[in-house]
């Protein structure tokens, strides 16, 4: 039972990271109907940037966190402007390929700038543990869970109470109507990319203490797909719930099932859910009219 709880908690922590990456997918998909295959790479870029700020420049963890998030917000908007804006309205297949290309470019640039060695950062949470009876929770796992809850609350408040957030919601519900209402739709797209890059960056920095920072970190983004699909690809709470589900499934199957199941468990669950509910667990079932 103790083992089970222990695995459950590490699964939830991992799942929160998947959830945060999936949140990035969902934000962009909801607003622009683009599925961003470069989300994992954007997360990786955020993590590597934190290495520069924390280890190379020797800045304080919290200050570095803030600087990274701001830098990624700017980079996110630049990516949208350079790569996605010119192909607005192209078939989805082309757009998906463009984001895959973007991911390749980011991964290669990260390799050229930071090298291919494993890196690590010092955080206030390193090496600390939290004990409840015999149960041991590492601080960095706990930090991820707490940060996810805070981020979700912040995003909820942003979309619920701010003008920009409401404008974004309008854009994602009906682009044309939003445009008629005087909402600058194109600027909203840039903002959404910034927001999504910020979330990804936060996920990357939070993840850094658990897995080392390396040039293949971006592949976690592909693990986050099942999370987003489970959540229905259009729902923000769904993304986090899907992420946590995938994290728990992966952690438990790594512990109880033979070797090899851990890596594919997420995809098996994904295929099973898609066969049963093609629009994901929280998705809307809609047929587009001609």
């Amino acid at each position, binding site marked *: 039972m103790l083992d089970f709880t222990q695995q459950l908690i590490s699964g939830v922590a991992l799942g929160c990271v998947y959830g945060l990456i999936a949140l990035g997918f969902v934000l962009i*998909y909801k607003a622009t*109907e683009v*599925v961003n295959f470069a989300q994992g790479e954007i997360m990786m870029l955020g993590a590597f940037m934190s290495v520069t700020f924390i280890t190379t420049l020797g800045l304080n963890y919290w200050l570095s966190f803030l600087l990274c998030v701001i830098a990624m917000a700017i980079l996110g908007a630049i990516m949208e402007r350079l*790569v996605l804006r*010119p*192909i*607005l*309205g*192209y078939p*989805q*297949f*082309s*757009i*998906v*390929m*463009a984001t*895959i*290309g*973007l*991911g*390749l*470019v*980011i*991964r*290669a*640039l*990260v*390799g*050229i700038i930071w090298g*291919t060695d494993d890196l690590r950062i010092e955080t206030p949470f390193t090496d600390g543990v939290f004990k409840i009876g015999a149960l041991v929770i590492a601080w960095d796992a706990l930090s991820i869970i707490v940060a996810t809850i805070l981020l979700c609350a912040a995003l909820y408040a942003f979309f619920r109470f701010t003008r920009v957030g409401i404008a974004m919601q309008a854009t994602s519900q009906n*682009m044309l109507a939003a445009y008629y209402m005087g909402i600058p739709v194109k600027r909203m797209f840039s903002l959404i990319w910034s927001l999504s890059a910020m979330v990804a960056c936060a996920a990357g920095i939070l993840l850094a203490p658990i897995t080392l920072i390396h*040039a293949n970190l971006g592949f976690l983004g*592909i693990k986050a*797909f*099942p999370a987003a*699909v489970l959540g229905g*690809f259009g729902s923000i709470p769904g993304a986090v719930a899907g992420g946590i589900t995938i994290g728990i499934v992966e952690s438990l199957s790594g512990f109880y099932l033979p070797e*090899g199941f851990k*890596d*594919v468990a997420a*995809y*098996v669950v*994904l*295929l099973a859910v*898609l*066969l049963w509910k*093609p*629009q*994901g667990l929280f998705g809307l079932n*809609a*047929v*587009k*009219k*001609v």
Partner: protein
Amino acid sequence: MAHHVRTDYGDSDPLFPSKAAVFWYAVLIAGLIAAPYLLESYYLSQLVFIMIYAIVGVALNILSGQAGQVSIGHAAFLAIGAYFTAVAQKHGLPLVLYLPLAGVFTGIAGYLVGLPALRLHGIYLAIATLAFAFIVEEIIARWESVTNGNEGLMLPPPSLFGLKLGTEGFYYLCLLVTVLVVLAAINIIRSSTGRSFMAIRNSETAARSMGIDTARYKTTAFALSAGITGIAGSLYAHKMSFISPEMFSLSVSIDFVMIIIIGGLVSLRGAVFGAIFMIMADPLLIILKDKLPLWADVVTHGLYLPDTVTQAVQAGVSRVVNAPGLKSLIFGIIIIVFIIYEPLGLDGRWQRVKAYSKQFPLARQRSARPPRMFLKSERR
């Protein structure tokens, strides 16, 4: 301007558009038959890779270009074809039998993947094929009694009717298979099946209301595409003569999608152009790696820049050139540039060059510009 006089229903979609086309295709085939006597063995080997990639490109063109279904997991079908070949050859099946059987076996796998595709579209389908590819890769790595796991399998050289196929023999085998596959694909696209694929691509709802059994045609598209990829996998296994799970990873699937994106989704010619581009990019990159520092040297000396700048440029260039991710950097940029500036691919450019030369003095740039596209929502 070109006018077509049609006296027969068959004229509306002929196998060859004109007598000139027949002539040029004959020249191409003759050139390819003569190639082993003209080219060095390195280029012959590249030609074999181009043909294998072209077969995969044709397969993806049928699925994505014609039927409009997305797959980013085609490396899995290549793997199934390759491993089927390895196992069949070990059990003593002859090539004439296992090459088509690899296609049939992979086609069945494709049919099974196509079943969930009935209920999924767009991005859900892309991600489902991705998941399938990961699962296949993992199964191959773990099913050690058949696939020998991560250590991989060695394949003896192929033999046809008891004769061992050498480099040239294998080249001719690939050429024959490629020509047959392309002919088959053209005829599928010309048939009612192909037209149903296009109807589904353009609008699934409209196709269904026209009485097209969308479920049947979608699974057919998957099965056909997978089967053709399986045949390519069989040839690929022989070409490499060693297969292991990491040869069929996600990046291979992305390479395959790049073939049709770069070549152009509209026609089969695009698949061949894309395959040539993808395979010849490697030797070009090697040349670039050799020459770029020299060129940088010439430029910096030509501009009489101060020594510190020259050294900095040299260091920067050598760092970029020797970076492990150079290939993916360039490929990434190529994908983005092609999608933004050449959405119809190399084939689209070729068509425009042809149209320009046909209407030579009268051609205007505006007439070649593709129509503007507007955002089409996939939701309600």
